[in-house]
């Protein structure tokens, strides 16, 4: 798989939060990479560390209480985690764009959206305000906002939720970054609006060749857009692989449980059919976990799981799973 050009390589990222109750290891040794023009879907439940991982990359974790304790994140040959504030600031707008879940609160309510899109261009691309505003109109047009030339003078409250998310995307795209991090970009939106935004993201990936990290809890959204998937649980990546492999052949009990628990709108259900649920709850991250964090909820659990935390074990090609149990052969997994 060397045909792809890696644009981002993250190794052994660890982020902790020091709280009154103790230390929360929110990100506990996460490694992944992103290729040019590819969509990496990061899926997991609330508190599994998916947002914290990505915010750590851009040094957006408030310190204190947060602290990145270990790891490297190479963008080309530069380590994002070792950068100074002014360097990382440049990266955030020019090289890695970011869009957030809530388009209502991520825009500045007292600035026109034209100003907000133009600002990074003036700041980082040495454009004059006039040029930058012209470019803003183009960007708004590109993300599908009608009458862009007039609307750049409007304020965020004059836009609907879906339109605000388009504005957020326009801001993230302003300096044509090679990487876009989208943190639950459609969670706050209605399904018909979600479909519009996913369509837009897909078009942008194809037209701009942008690499995208898509964070979501929705396995449908991942199936729609992602080329590769990383499933997170309790601060770790528990399974990763191409979207096809992970969905067709889920090899971690958590991934399997998630996929089984979803009802499908494209399949018939008998009225007596129950959903397969995963028992229990995610672990409290304040408690130290010996062994596999999913052990307490896992139906395949055996002795080794309670004492040894499995790392990602390569199954085939890009597909790896952090599980001691080999579901296919129904035996303990041997690591060469």
């Amino acid at each position: 798989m060397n045909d792809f050009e890696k644009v981002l390589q993250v190794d052994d990222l660890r982020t902790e939060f020091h709280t009154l109750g103790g230390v929360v290891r929110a990100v506990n040794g996460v490694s992944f990479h992103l290729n040019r023009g590819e969509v990496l879907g990061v899926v997991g439940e609330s508190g599994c560390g998916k947002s914290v991982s990505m915010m750590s990359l851009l040094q957006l974790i408030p310190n204190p209480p947060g602290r990145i304790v270990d790891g490297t994140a190479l963008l080309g040959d530069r380590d994002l985690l070792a950068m100074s504030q002014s360097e990382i600031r440049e990266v955030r707008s020019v090289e890695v764009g970011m869009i957030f879940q809530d388009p209502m609160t991520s825009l500045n309510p007292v600035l026109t959206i034209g100003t907000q899109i133009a600002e990074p261009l003036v700041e980082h691309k040495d454009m004059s305000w006039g040029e930058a505003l012209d470019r803003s109109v183009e960007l708004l047009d590109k993300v599908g906002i009608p009458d862009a030339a007039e609307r750049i003078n409007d304020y965020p409250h004059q836009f609907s939720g879906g339109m605000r998310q388009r504005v957020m995307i326009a801001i993230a795209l302003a300096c044509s970054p090679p990487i876009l991090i989208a943190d639950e970009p459609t969670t706050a939106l209605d399904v018909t609006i979600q479909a519009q935004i996913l369509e837009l993201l897909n078009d942008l990936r194809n037209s701009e060749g942008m690499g995208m990290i898509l964070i979501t809890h929705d396995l449908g959204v991942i199936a729609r857009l992602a080329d590769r998937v990383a499933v997170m649980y309790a601060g770790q990546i528990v399974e990763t692989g191409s979207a096809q492999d992970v969905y067709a052949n889920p090899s971690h009990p958590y991934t399997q449980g998630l996929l089984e628990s979803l009802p499908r709108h494209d399949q018939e259900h008998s009225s007596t059919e129950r959903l397969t649920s995963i028992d229990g709850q995610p672990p409290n991250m304040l408690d130290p976990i010996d062994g596999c964090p999913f052990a307490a909820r896992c139906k395949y659990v055996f002795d080794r799981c309670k004492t040894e935390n499995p790392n990602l074990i390569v199954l085939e090609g890009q597909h790896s799973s952090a599980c001691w149990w080999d579901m296919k052969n129904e035996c303990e997994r041997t690591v060469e």
Partner: protein
Amino acid sequence: MNVSEPLNNKNMLRVKNLKVHFPIRRGVLQRQVGAVRAVDGITFDILRGETFGLVGESGCGKTTTGRAILQLYEPTAGEIEFDGVKLAHLDPKLMRDMRRRMQMIFQDPFASLNPRLSVGATIAEPIRIHGTVDKQKIQDRVNHLLEVVGLSPDVASRFPHEFSGGQRQRVGIARALASEPDFIVCDEPISALDVSIQAQVVNLIEDLRADIGLTYLFIGHDLSMIRHISDRVAVMYLGHIVELAETDQLFVNALNPYTVSLISAIPVPDPVIEAKRQRIVLQGDVPNPANPPKGCLFSTRCPLVVDECRTNRPELKEWRPGHYAACHRIDEMGAGKGLPPIRLEQNSGQTSQ
């Protein structure tokens, strides 16, 4: 329990031409300058023992409908009949018994429990108020309810903040069951929960229906879950029901272009299917309910729109037995004659692979 009630009556709930309008007031004198037509004339029945799904995007009036049925909002017009009794202007004493029999499970398990009441006290309150069991037996009843929803009776003395979202929702369900209701409005009971917890709560809600013989109005925006749990489904758009049918009919043979678009908008958790699936991406946003379009409500976004749609609002009509839809284009598409569902991709709507 309730032996005195007519058992031969098939309908648990009848909603006839229900309207809920919220006034818009402006100026010093707070004069009414308009109204948000949150629910604007909807009619449906819920049969005894069924789960009736109500689905739509935010602002379509589904939650308002649920609350108006429970008389938490006063309807602007229309009739609600629960088990043969009209609820409007009911004698307060009778209304109290009606309230006991109709309960609600709320969306947000974090906001719907009183943080200062222990879980036991929360569940005991409706039992005490409605006097469904003797005072000495309240604690037993609370313990029993906690067990029914899958919690240990030991937790009765704990407070809501000590529980996770899924556990709180279980407490909310126990509270709703405490007054021994016949009918429960479930208002998006799982949308605030994590994926792995959703299935647990839905299974509980389904088990209770079978065990206690409940009737549900299940409000949601997640069409996959609605398909799983409902016997019949109504789709709402801008305060109106645009389609109503048995669940599988609705998902397989949807007649209204809005329903077809809504179903197609939801991604399927399978990348192989997703890559092949035909999608209809609707343009634009839902119009403002204070100023709805003149003709068909969906005419501003519908890929099949013709001139008639912009001037005349279609009525909800029965096209097949039990399958109602409001649309001018159904006949032309041949769907009313039992032909396959509308193929929107052949038309002007933007589609994509």
